[in-house]
């Protein structure tokens, strides 16, 4: 059943029409995949049984899939609330360094297990204005994806640029494919994003970014390659 997602936060208060059911379907698809991995791995454990030494790699895989599931559920709940209860961002002031440090701590175990060097970088005196729980959800998602696509490094950083707080997640993997870079940031909320579930995280990020407003300026996202690391770079611009 097609639903309408109201996006009263857009610069022109446009109503982005999209299929909520499609988002739901692709999220469920993704979560089922994760659950599949969890079930299979657990089955292997019970089959190996008793004396066999615990395979750390499998534990790590379990942990990662569980985190993915959790991130998707948070995404789903947030989308549901935006759709049904018309929530607005609750903007408060946060120390960016402390915020990023917590995110790195949350994801450190997964990074170590995959031998990825995960770091944060920000001026300790930098403060930002955003809805902490919404942005936390977005960055956690990006870090989860980043751990999949990077080769050895993952960096999350915060900096003040052109009057915006820019939060970036960068890796040294292969980077975003050309066709994704060609799409301008402003369009990152149309239904084309939903058609492929790999882009769902971006749709979610764009939506959350757009919920942030300062006077007449709105948040947005942008994608690029080779910012300070050699791979992809996702930027969240918050006014």
């Amino acid at each position, binding site marked *: 059943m097609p639903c309408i997602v109201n996006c009263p936060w857009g610069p022109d208060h446009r109503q982005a029409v999209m299929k909520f059911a499609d988002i739901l379907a692709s999220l469920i698809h993704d979560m089922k995949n994760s659950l599949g991995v969890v079930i299979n791995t657990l089955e292997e454990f019970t089959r190996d049984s008793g004396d066999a030494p615990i395979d750390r790699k499998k534990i790590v895989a379990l942990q990662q899939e569980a985190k993915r599931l959790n991130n998707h559920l948070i995404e789903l709940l947030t989308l549901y*609330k935006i759709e049904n209860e018309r929530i607005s961002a609750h903007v408060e*002031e946060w120390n960016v360094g402390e915020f990023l440090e917590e995110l790195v701590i949350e994801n450190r175990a997964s990074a170590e297990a995959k031998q990825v060097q*995960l770091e944060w970088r920000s001026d300790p005196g930098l403060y930002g204005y955003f809805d902490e729980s919404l942005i936390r959800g977005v960055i956690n998602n990006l870090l989860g994806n980043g751990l999949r696509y990077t080769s050895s490094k993952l960096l999350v950083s915060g900096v003040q640029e052109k009057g915006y707080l820019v939060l970036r997640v960068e890796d040294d993997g292969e980077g975003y494919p050309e066709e994704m870079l060609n799409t301008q940031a402003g369009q990152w909320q149309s239904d084309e994003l939903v058609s492929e579930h790999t882009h769902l995280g971006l749709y979610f990020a764009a939506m959350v970014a757009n919920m942030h407003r300062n006077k007449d300026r709105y948040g947005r996202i942008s994608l690029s390659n080779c910012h300070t690391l050699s791979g992809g770079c996702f930027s969240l611009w918050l006014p």
Partner: protein
Amino acid sequence: MEKRAPLNFRTNELEKKDFLIIDDFGDMRSMIKSMLQAIGITKLDAAANGMDAVSAMEAKRYDIVLCDYNLGPGKNGQQVLEEARHRNLIGLGSIFVMITAENTLDMVMGAVEYEPDSYLTKPFTKDLLRARLDKLVEKKKNLKDVEQAVDRNDFEVAVILLDKKMAGKPKNLRELIKLKAELCFLAGDYQQAATILEGIIAEREMTWALLGLGKVYYARGDYQKARTLFEKLLLENERFTAAYDWLARTLQMLDQPEDAQEVLHRAVTLSPNAILRQQALGELALKNQDEETASKALAQAVKLGRHSVYKHPSVNASLAKIKARAGASREGLKILKNMMGEFSGSHEASLYASMAECVIHSDAGEADAAEASLQRSRELYEQIGLEAGPNAALEMVRVCDKLGDSDTAKSLLNTVVKNNHSEDRLLKDVGSLMSELGMESDPESYIEEIHKEVVNINNHGVELAKSGNLKQALDHFEEATQGMPANKVVNLNAARVLIMNMKESGTDRGQLGKVKQYLDKVRKVDDKDPGLRRVHAMYRQLSLGS
């Protein structure tokens, strides 16, 4: 730009702290427990529900409380927090972390009086828990002396302490600015509070700053400006329920009780579990004679009250009367009986119960029973004295008037106005009660008359003191306090003149004792009165010097 290692354990402070874990799931409790033990914490207790948690906090002062929001039947996490902070079971220097299952937005937006120091979303890792706790401990440590001053209600000293810290441009400067604005507001220094908030808003329209500025306008009596601001806030954040509460209060002051009710109704629809808001809606609907809304809201408030520190017998009594008026007098009496069980031992509850009984019996045509209840109410009212508060007095007025004892009703009303001549909101209630009961042809000028009289008494005394006739001023205020024993301004003036007198002719134990009596009376009426703290500071200085 600085680059730092991802982990940065700043302190070992945590290991010395007393912890309380509150969660209804045994597995969750033991998981958090083992996380804390792995961090090196040894002093930790656990509670499985809100009631046990409150008992634990009554028995011991905890430094850090980790509380799940969902605690099954009984109190929820927010109610535990409210009770702990309201009853001062945990100090301002302690840390309360609310653990939640998902997005916290509704809780943040729905909180009325108290917010936790931090929200932590499940699931979380040991390392994240430690990082968060380290950060919170660091912040509280920095504020210890300020919080001690606030605990004493000594907001002026707290502001001076804050200024000293802010001069050093610390890392948490912005938090200190926010705290300073709050404390200036509490201290009654609205001018400075407004200056700080306007400065913040010029930079960025933070919701808390806009709400704070609206509260300043309200406190100054600038209701039109307050209204515009609260409406603007709600236009942009329709779930920001605290703004509804303040807008409703403002509309009442602007004589728009129906609009105020509509506003509260919207807030209650968004977040139905805030007891104070349900109480306010119930009382407002009663005034608006919308019995259906009143009945619903009061029933909800009574239900929420079972687990809340904010329960009040007047709410149960109002519900009982409404039920009786709708034809269910037996149900009404039963509500009163249950209430006596819930508030057992409270004289105030007994008073409200017998006043409501009186009304119910009278409506049912049981004149003797009604008269007996009235007699009992009078006795209880005498017994409780000043502590009964003006709202109980107004209810007495209603009851006496109903049973034809208009002399008592009039004299009570007169006392309420005299004792509260500077309380605009209460005087509004007095005015509408008078019109409702048909007392006096022009309630407004009746109140204005008494108001003027009290102002004149105060001015005359102050004049006497200023012109050096301290002895005469003393006698004048002494007499005035007998006529209006619960009037804050009169009592404070009496204390001030005594202090002036002692400064001139030396301190005197008898007079110091009298000052203390005056201050205690004010404290009973309103322990947060800004004037009280100023005079109390003078008193303390004097008694230390003697």
